[in-house]
């Protein structure tokens, strides 16, 4: 696959077209129908969660939130390929993959409502918290990869970044270190065409991102990120290579951020309706649904039923997060050091004395 789709050949790895028709059978993954249906359901859940969260934000019930719409296939495919012991190193637009790794939607809500408890991921195994400093997390993935190699473990790191992140030095340092150390890391670049408002052509003069892997001596491939099957096949092959000791892979997943960067952003300022409509034709959910319908594996009626059910589930987890309760003073201080330094303890005590004084004034 990586030879045939060598980035220097400037080909994009794509398995179904916009109408859901299989256009490449050679690399089409051999998947049980249930798995494909469940991928679609998970994508639908992620989209429902996004839509509702944006609406909660408009109602002032949650702070800034970065929606995933349009990019669901990438995270969902990664979620299916990742094993329990594999590591996920997220940026912040990979909701479906987080959920697949065992992070709860409630935790995601807590994080964006302003509780660090929402990035503790209590029940999820081998997931780092979301990383806001762009691209910095990729190096963590490489460090984890070193540990896997050093301990001869059968694990793979899935590290995410956006197209804007590939302009950061840390992206280049990470891919370079990964190449030199030959560690089992898959870099997944979600090229969603925008870094907030800055279009991809203003991030780099290079012809896509996959091609950048060549100079680092790292396998690379450009994949249609809105094609669930292509993402699944490419990630599976990259993971196989990693597990066999063949080192890192850079996957450029070409996609489109259908929503705003975050709820604080207004895309009408920097892109046209025409452009959005053009990309709408490639929507990952629409395409996968067309495929499923053509195989008689799914109906609109089922979708409507699911959508209702998912809305209720999202609402349930959101309300649970809303009722999480006050932020304990203890939590401001207690996680910074293994043992709290005396000065910090004194600051905490001072503040607690103020709180008591304040309470007594009431």
């Amino acid at each position, binding site marked *: 696959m990586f030879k045939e789709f060598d980035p220097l050949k400037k080909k994009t790895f794509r398995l179904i077209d916009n109408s859901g028709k299989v256009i490449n059978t050679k690399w089409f993954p051999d998947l049980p129908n249930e798995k494909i249906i469940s991928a679609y359901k998970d994508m639908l859940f992620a989209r429902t969660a996004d839509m509702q969260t944006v609406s909660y934000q408009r109602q002032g019930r949650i702070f800034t939130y970065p929606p995933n719409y349009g990019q669901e296939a990438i995270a969902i495919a990664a979620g299916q390929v990742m094993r329990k012991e594999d*590591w996920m190193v997220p940026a912040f637009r990979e909701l479906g993959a987080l959920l697949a790794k065992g992070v709860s939607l409630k935790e995601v809500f807590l994080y964006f409502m302003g509780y660090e*408890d929402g990035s503790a991921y209590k029940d999820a195994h081998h997931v780092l918290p979301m990383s806001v400093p762009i691209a910095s997390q990729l190096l963590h993935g490489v460090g984890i990869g070193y540990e896997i190699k050093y301990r001869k473990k059968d694990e793979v790191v899935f590290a995410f970044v956006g197209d804007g992140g590939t302009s950061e030095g840390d992206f280049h340092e990470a891919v370079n270190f990964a190449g030199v150390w030959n560690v089992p890391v898959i870099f997944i670049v979600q090229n969603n065409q925008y870094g907030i408002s800055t279009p991809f052509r203003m991030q780099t003069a290079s012809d896509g991102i996959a091609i950048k892997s060549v100079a680092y001596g790292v396998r690379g491939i450009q994949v249609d990120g809105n094609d669930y099957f292509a993402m699944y096949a490419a990630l599976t092959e990259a993971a196989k290579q990693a597990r066999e000791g063949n080192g890192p892979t850079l996957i450029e997943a070409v996609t489109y951020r259908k929503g705003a960067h975050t709820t604080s952003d207004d895309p009408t300022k920097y892109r046209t309706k025409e452009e959005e409509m053009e990309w709408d034709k490639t929507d990952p959910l629409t395409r996968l649904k067309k495929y499923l319908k053509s195989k008689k594996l799914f109906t609109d009626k089922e979708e409507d039923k699911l959508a209702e059910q998912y809305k209720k589930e999202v609402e349930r987890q959101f309300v649970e997060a809303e009722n999480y309760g006050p932020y304990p003073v203890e939590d401001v201080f207690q996680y910074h*050091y293994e043992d709290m330094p005396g000065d910090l303890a004194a600051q905490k005590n001072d503040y607690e004395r103020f709180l008591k004084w304040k309470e007594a004034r009431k």
Partner: protein
Amino acid sequence: MVNAINNALDIKLKEDDNVIVYGEDVGVEGGVFRITEGLQKKYGADRVFDSPLAESGLVGTAVGMAAAGLRPVIEMQFSGFTYPGFNQIISHAARMRNRSRGKYPMPIVIRMPYGGGINALEHHSESTEAIYAQIPGVKVVIPSTPHDAKGLLITAIESNDTVIYMEPKRIYRAIKQEVPEEKFSIPFGKANVLAKGTDVTVVAYGAMIREVQKAMVLAKEAGISVELIDLRSIYPIDRDTIAESVRKTGRIITVTESPRSFGVASEITQIINEDAFLHLEAPPKRVTGFDTIVPLAKGEHHYMQSGEKIFYEIEKTVKY
């Protein structure tokens, strides 16, 4: 001190295979100051090795290794080259424990030679301890003797929090001292009273200890009794030892080779204001570098604190 640091690394590499030592030129060459000499041969190239030349890469990969359970000890070739890695220190190494609510502690040691006085090139002479000490989530320590270098580094490697371990490169090979062969550790947050005195307390650390000791010879001739405290740990800071000393002497001078404003000396002044205010007989004094860039070799003596300069300040404070 070079041997003592090497010995501490050797001990920890031997007893804990989670310890990984890497950095620029750290492997075959043993680092530009030969701190890691011989360790690659002894422990193999997967435990002691050269990294690509990229400081953010160094710290960032250490964050990942720590998350996965290793205990990376990385070397910054000079403290002045650390800044590309600063984002990884302040945004991740320092924060990961808190943001994961304790799930991912960061047992990382970032070693860096710092400070002036060796006629070095540009960017090789700064003292940036205050910058690191301001970062919530990291600890900062500075040894002044081979003995302390070993004991503090053992503690640093065994710490489950990120430690900035700053090495006063000016005295790397300046002090001959018998250091116990066996493993021992020195707790963080405990200053060391090097000399008992009654007239003035002088707090210093790193290479400045030797300069204060030179000043103390002059002070003794002048009949002034100096209490010398080696801070050893910048953060957490041992405010009790400092305050207790000042309650006795009534006077305090802090000597550093970093810029004056917003620095360790200013912090100590405030500690005294809080904990020993009524005992003061003279204003706390900051004897430090200027708020300037460290001049290149020919001008550096203007910036650095000498025994004579420290004595001059001691005398002024005592006569205040």
